[in-house]
Structures are given as structure tokens and as C-alpha cells.
């Protein structure tokens, strides 16, 4: 035991400055198993009960456990999908590949979907990356900005000759994903504590939207024309341009009515926060 009540002589000739000490300690925590850490170990007091190495080890172990726990919170259904062992391995691989650069742990897991899509062996299982992307989109919708939502009466009040120029603002919580695997069905089954079938691959990517209504998050798939129209208004297309684009799937004579129907649906789902004309 050291006696912490008695000031010790500062080892001025050999002591490191604050920046160097912190960098050495951080290097140790980030890569405890791969580097020679004699330097930082020499800076720390060991005791008969706990050596310098075991004391430092508390920090490196806690670092990984804490970040894995953060990933587990954001990607709880991915964890269920891949199982405990694989989740721990992929989380550890991510922690080492993406040392945290964010001060708010809320954002630590932001690159996990990309990591899983591009890093073997996880990239061999595209459902993993898609599940991660879906769960991350849910977190984005959860605490996105609040905004007022339009009512049907707001749309009805737009003069007929102004409809063509109408542009829209979507609710800030709206997220769009195209998924080749039906991971939302797996997510829903787990959430409902039902037996979940392993995600199946679709013939082609399916469009999904994820958003928040009041305080709760929702998601649903989109037919191809609706997905195109929603993406178009998010990019600033006006109503006339949406009608024109929908002719790819709808007869020209019915395009305006179809577009108006989509708009009415989005308004009732609280997806539209503003319009200009």
C-alpha cells in the first residue's frame, strides 16, 4: 500500500508531461493486447494486492465492456439475430476498428451498419448489415427533431391553381431504407415475443420508411411508385413533377389523382410537416 496522505517527491527528471502520460494511457486502453506498454506500466504504482498491470487492465476491460454494452442497447435485435458469441466478436471487432471519436456515446454505433456490410466475415451475411441499418434508422427516428404536422384541412385549403407548384417538408424523423432482406419482420417478431423466422432474401430490394408519430416510432414498406414519390418530395420536387414522374407506373390521366392520394396518406400518417406554394 502506498501512503497517499504523504506528499511524494515529484520525479521531475523522468516524469512525463500531462499530454504524453494521457496519450500513453489511451494507447494502452485502445490496444491493450497488441502493444508494448512498459512505459505506462512504469508510470503507475503497483501494490502487493494489485500490480500496476492489473490496475491498468481495469480500464482497458471497462472500455470494451462499456462500448459493447452501448452497441447492445442500439442493436438489440441484431444481437438476437446473430447470437451472443457472434455479437460479442463483431462488437469487439467494431470497437477496435472504430475507436470512439464522439463525446456522446449515443453516436458511437453509427458506423456499425457500414462495418458489417464491408468487413469479412460479416459482409458474407448481408442480413446482418441490413438489420443494423434498420435498427440504427429506428434510433435516428426516436430522438430526431420535433416538428408540427400538417392536417388534411391544410392541404384542402391550397387553391387549385397552386397545386402544381406545391413543395413539401417531411417530418425530420423520416428515414428511408431499401432492404433486400426482410429484417423488419424479424425485428417485429422479436419485439412481440413471437417465434421469429430467419430473415429471407427478397427477389429485389424493398423500400421502407421509418418515422416517429407523436413519441412512438413506426415503419412500413412502400410500393415502388410511392417510394419514388416520397424520395422525390424529399429532394424538393413539386407536385407537378411528382405527377409527371409517377407516369412511369400510372396512366397519365390518373397520375394527379394517384399523387393526391399518396399525399393524403402521408398527411394522415403525420409524415408531412410543411408545404410551400
Amino acid at each position: 500500500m502506498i501512503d497517499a496522505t504523504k506528499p511524494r517527491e515529484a520525479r521531475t527528471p523522468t516524469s512525463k508531461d500531462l499530454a504524453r502520460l494521457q496519450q500513453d494511457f489511451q494507447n494502452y486502453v485502445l490496444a491493450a493486447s497488441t502493444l508494448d506498454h512498459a512505459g505506462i506500466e512504469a508510470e503507475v504504482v503497483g501494490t502487493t494486492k494489485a500490480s500496476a498491470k492489473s490496475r491498468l487492465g481495469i480500464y482497458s476491460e471497462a472500455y470494451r465492456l462499456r462500448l459493447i454494452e452501448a452497441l447492445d442497447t442500439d442493436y438489440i435485435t441484431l444481437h438476437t439475430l446473430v447470437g451472443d458469441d457472434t455479437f460479442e466478436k463483431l462488437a469487439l471487432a467494431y470497437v477496435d476498428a472504430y475507436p470512439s471519436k464522439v463525446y456522446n456515446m449515443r453516436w458511437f454505433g453509427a458506423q456499425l451498419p457500414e462495418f458489417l456490410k464491408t468487413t469479412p466475415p460479416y459482409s458474407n451475411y448481408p442480413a446482418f448489415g441490413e438489420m443494423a441499418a434498420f435498427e440504427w434508422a429506428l434510433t435516428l427516428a426516436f430522438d430526431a427533431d420535433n416538428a408540427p404536422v400538417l392536417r388534411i384541412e391544410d392541404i384542402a385549403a391550397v387553391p387549385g391553381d397552386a397545386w402544381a407548384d406545391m413543395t413539401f417538408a417531411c417530418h425530420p424523423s423520416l428515414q428511408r431504407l431499401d432492404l433486400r432482406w426482410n429484417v423488419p419482420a424479424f425485428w417485429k417478431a422479436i419485439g412481440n415475443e413471437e417465434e421469429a423466422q430467419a430473415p429471407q432474401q427478397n427477389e429485389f430490394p424493398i423500400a421502407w420508411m421509418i418515422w416517429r408519430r407523436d413519441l412512438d416510432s413506426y415503419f412500413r414498406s412502400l410500393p415502388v411508385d410511392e417510394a419514388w414519390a416520397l424520395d422525390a418530395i424529399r429532394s424538393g420536387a413539386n407536385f407537378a413533377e411528382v405527377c409527371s414522374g409517377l407516369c412511369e407506373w400510372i396512366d397519365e390521366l390518373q397520375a394527379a389523382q394517384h399523387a393526391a392520394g399518396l399525399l393524403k396518406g402521408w398527411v394522415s400518417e403525420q409524415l408531412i410537416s410543411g408545404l410551400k406554394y
Partner: protein
Amino acid sequence: MTATPTSPVSFRKPGSPCHRYLGFGLGLRTPHYDTILETRPAVDWFEILSENYFCAGGKPLHYLDRIRADYPVVMHGVSLSIGSSDEVNIDYLKQLKTLAKRVEPQWISDHLCWTGVAGNNLHDLMPLPYTEEAVAHVVSHVNQVQEYLGRRIALENVSSYVTYKQSAMAEWDFLREIAERADCLILLDINNIYVSSFNHGFDPHLYLEGIPTERVQQFHLAGHRHCDDYIIDTHDEPVIDPVWQLYAHAVRRFGDVSTIIERDDNIPPLEELLAELDHARRIAASVETELAA
């Protein structure tokens, strides 16, 4: 306000920079949101984790606003990294100040530690060496932060597992020196003092005796995990008896200090924390009776 702070005994020296006494509070945790709004428990105030509300909207801010409407709130951060050799993170301060405008907290606190360098974040409360260099560095950062926020901050002692050979003073001297030179406040975590006293072999009472009474704004009480050779500060268990005894000693020395039970993990039903808080109230009342006699 449904909860009225209990009547304090003031041992404060005239001219103390501390804010008013708030009584006995709890750390605000997500699982308790609905119970708090439905039952309006007899908690005098809540301490929030600032970073949990660095978001644009949705549930976190919704619940925070509603609870703030009924209770005093204090903001407690984990990412200020006041002792980092990096520059103070102005983006972090901007978010903190934005949240403070919304919450109008009674005060703002963070930890006397560093959390990363060179842009990295270890998301841990890393200990500082107790050197004159570190004192000067932290004082300079505290001055900058206090000027930016336009208010004094309170700094909390952290639990630690290492002592640096280059440390040249006791931890309490380090904390006192910084608080006095930077003119900031002190948040004493009684559990952290206990944990570090075991890990480093010092007398926790000496720690309390070394802290200036007029700067102690708040107490934290929490639990920990004993691993035989050392204690890990987990904040996931009830407060143990030796920490309650140390708390009684702290009340004898510092008097009316706003106190919370801080549970960060293994969150129990609210009633369990309320019972623990009542235990703190009883200890404080008993010390006050003892002193009055």
C-alpha cells in the same frame, strides 16, 4: 412544486459561492419516467445526465420538460474532459449551454478527470496525476468553461484504480487547490472517496477533512462492486454501510449539502431508491439532532 426541500442546518461560512440547498434527490433514469409523472414522488430534485438530452426531440426531451415543470433539476455531465490535454471542446460546451437554456438547472457539474486525447474518447473517467502542472492545466480549462457558460461549475471526485508515480500531492489537496484557484464548486461523491480510499490505501476521513466546507455544493451516494483486491465503482448496487457511515461523517463536517442517490445500472423500481433516499434523510436528520444537542 410537490416536493419541498427539508429544512437545512447551515454550517456554511459567510460568502460561500454555493447555490441554495435542494434537499434529497435522485439521478433521473429512463425506466422511472412514467412512475415519476404518475405518482409525483417525494423527491426534492432530480439530477440528469446532460448527454442523454443532447438530442433534437422525441421522448427524452418530452419527459425531461414534463419532469422539469414539477421538480428542480441539476445537470451532470460525463464528457467535459476538463483535465484532457486536448483543447476544451467548444462544440460540447455549445450543446451543454443550449440544454442549460432549456432546463434552467440549479447548477451544472462534471468530473475532475479526462476522457480522451487527440480526438478520441474512452468514455471513462480517467484519473489525473496530482501535480502542479495538472492543477494549472485544469484551472485554465475550468476558467474557460465557466466563462463560456457564464456560471460556476461543480467538479466531482472520481473513483480510481491507479496512482501515478509522478503525483506529488494527495487527491483532496489536488481537488481543493483546483476549486480554490478556479473558483469552482465541488461535488463530493462519498462512494468514490470510499472506493479510492480502499484502492489506494488512504483514510477517507482525511479526504473529507481536506476539502473546504464552503465549496461543497453536492453529495453523490452510490454502490459499488468489491473484487477482494480492489473495488470497482459500478454504481449498480445499494449504498453499503461503511459508505453511509462516511456520509454521516460528511454531514457532520459539511452540513446542509444537496444529496442524491446515483444509480447508473441495474436500475431497481423507483420505490427502492426512494427507500434508500429516506435512509439518507434519516442519517442527515440524526446528525443534525446530534449536533444540536
